[in-house]
């Protein structure tokens, strides 16, 4: 009897494991492909905003360009500096890549789909502290840069690493505080719950416009994107933390940046813009598979808008000076975020009385 129970438990568990493994493979390969084509999109958007044409030679409309770029990086000579700390030198890009991928685990990519008589949730792990997990993993991302830059035994790299570390730590604070205001509105830490709430009511950006603005600015800083790309400032630090890197290790660093950009776009869409909620469509009236499909399309549409915003800003705003960056982070964004938190708290208290 006990054995039979155990067997049944195991058989159910196995289905779940396969389901999750497939989901993980799909999510990881999808984010890799999206990151690959984000590099292509970046070059195209840059070209179009500057009245150029952009890559258009490899394949139709230059669509094979990212493959050619990747191939180039693979075939380049792998150089590990003699005086570097070899283990950490390799660990740096690996860690950057890994932390970039890890965040995707708690994101609800869509609602349930029904396949082979099973109801499969399109979220790898619906943990009730989703937001905290995201923050934890995102702040781990700086270790990849820090370790890589320190291990290369180069002063420019070290400067880049220092900048990255202090920048990410100081913007994390403002980001966290702006999140607290959002958490007070939603009353939950689970990303899935937040999406469900937004599906039923309004998008969170309506309740938290200031919070969203702070979060957006901090997301730019966390992704090391212009105007906050001081860690890799090409014309001051010769590439900053990846000065000594070559071949695919450099590729991993650059790739991690694009994955980070993708993931932070997804998180912003999920937290503030309703995640997989398609506006003006009532998902409950549709079949679950159809609703899931529409949800994924909606989420990807929002993500594409955010990624375009990232690129648009990159080709508009010049880089901050370092003291301006710190001034903005500590003396403007953090007080603003605190004010936003107090305001939100006050309003919630007033309406709940």
């Amino acid at each position, binding site marked *: 009897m006990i054995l039979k129970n155990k067997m049944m438990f195991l058989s159910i568990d196995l289905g779940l494991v396969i389901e999750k493994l497939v989901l993980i493979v799909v999510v990881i390969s999808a984010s890799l492909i999206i990151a690959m084509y984000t590099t292509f999109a970046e070059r195209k958007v840059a070209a179009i905003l500057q009245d*150029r044409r952009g890559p258009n030679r490899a394949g139709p409309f230059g669509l094979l360009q990212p493959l050619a770029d990747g191939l180039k990086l693979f075939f380049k000579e792998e150089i590990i500096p003699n005086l570097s700390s070899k283990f950490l030198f390799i660990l740096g890009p690996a860690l950057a890549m890994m932390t970039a991928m890890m965040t995707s685990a708690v994101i609800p990519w869509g609602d349930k789909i029904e396949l082979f008589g099973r109801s499969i949730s399109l979220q790898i792990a619906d943990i009730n502290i989703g937001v905290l997990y995201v923050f934890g993993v995102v702040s781990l991302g700086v270790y990849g840069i820090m370790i890589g830059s320190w291990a290369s035994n180069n002063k420019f790299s070290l400067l880049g690493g220092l900048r990255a570390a202090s920048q990410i730590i100081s913007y994390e604070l403002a980001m966290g505080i702006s999140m607290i205001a959002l958490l007070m509105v939603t009353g939950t830490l689970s990303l899935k719950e937040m999406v469900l709430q937004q599906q039923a009511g309004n998008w969170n950006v309506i309740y938290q416009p200031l919070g969203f603005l702070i979060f957006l600015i901090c997301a730019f800083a966390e992704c090391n994107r212009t105007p906050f790309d001081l860690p890799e400032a090409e014309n001051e630090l010769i590439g900053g933390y990846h000065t000594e890197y070559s071949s695919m290790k450099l590729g991993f660093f650059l790739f991690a940046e694009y994955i980070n950009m993708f993931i932070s776009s997804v998180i912003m869409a999920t937290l503030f813009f309703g995640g997989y909620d398609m506006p003006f469509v009532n998902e409950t009236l549709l079949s679950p598979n159809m609703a899931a499909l529409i949800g994924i399309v909606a989420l990807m549409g929002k993500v594409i808008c955010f990624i375009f915003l990232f690129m648009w*800003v990159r080709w508009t705003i010049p880089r901050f000076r370092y003291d301006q960056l710190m001034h903005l982070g500590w003396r403007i964004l953090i007080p603003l975020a605190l004010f936003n938190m107090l305001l939100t708290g006050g309003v919630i208290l007033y309406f709940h009385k």
Partner: protein
Amino acid sequence: MQALTDKSKQVSRKPMNFMERMYLPAIFKGMVITFSHIFKKKPTINYPEKKRPFSPVFRGLQILNRDEEGRENCTACGLCAVACPAEAITMEAAERQPGEENLYREEKYAAKYEINMLRCIFCGLCEEACPKDAIYLSETFTPADYQRKQFIYSKNDLLIPHPKENPTAYQQALGNRPKRESVI
């Protein structure tokens, strides 16, 4: 000091007001400007597919001309070599033998005709000096090469394709060059 022009402007060092210190309106304005560039016409020409038309006075690679029956015009008079400021042209003359009337238009012809393309400055004086309409500058660039000696173009490299044997190539080499009255 007295300014030479009235173009210089006094730099304003006024402290920024609140709106300016917010930065966001200025950033938004900048982003609108970059966005408007999406709809601008792109000046790029997709080169190998589409070529920019040459100006009618463009001076490119030299071509040794033939007449309509395919006879070489050049009589090796040497006027082009004399006119050449870069001294890029050398030639050797020879007398036409009986039975060669279909090859050379007149009794004297150039047995050897060389232009050093590394010396040539494409000024077009050879074309102007030529009394026989035998040399003209086409609308082609000198192609790149790996060795210096490849840039000394011999008669074979310079001669226009035969108008009877290869009429399409002949027309292509002739281009849309205005026809000069042949001088004999």
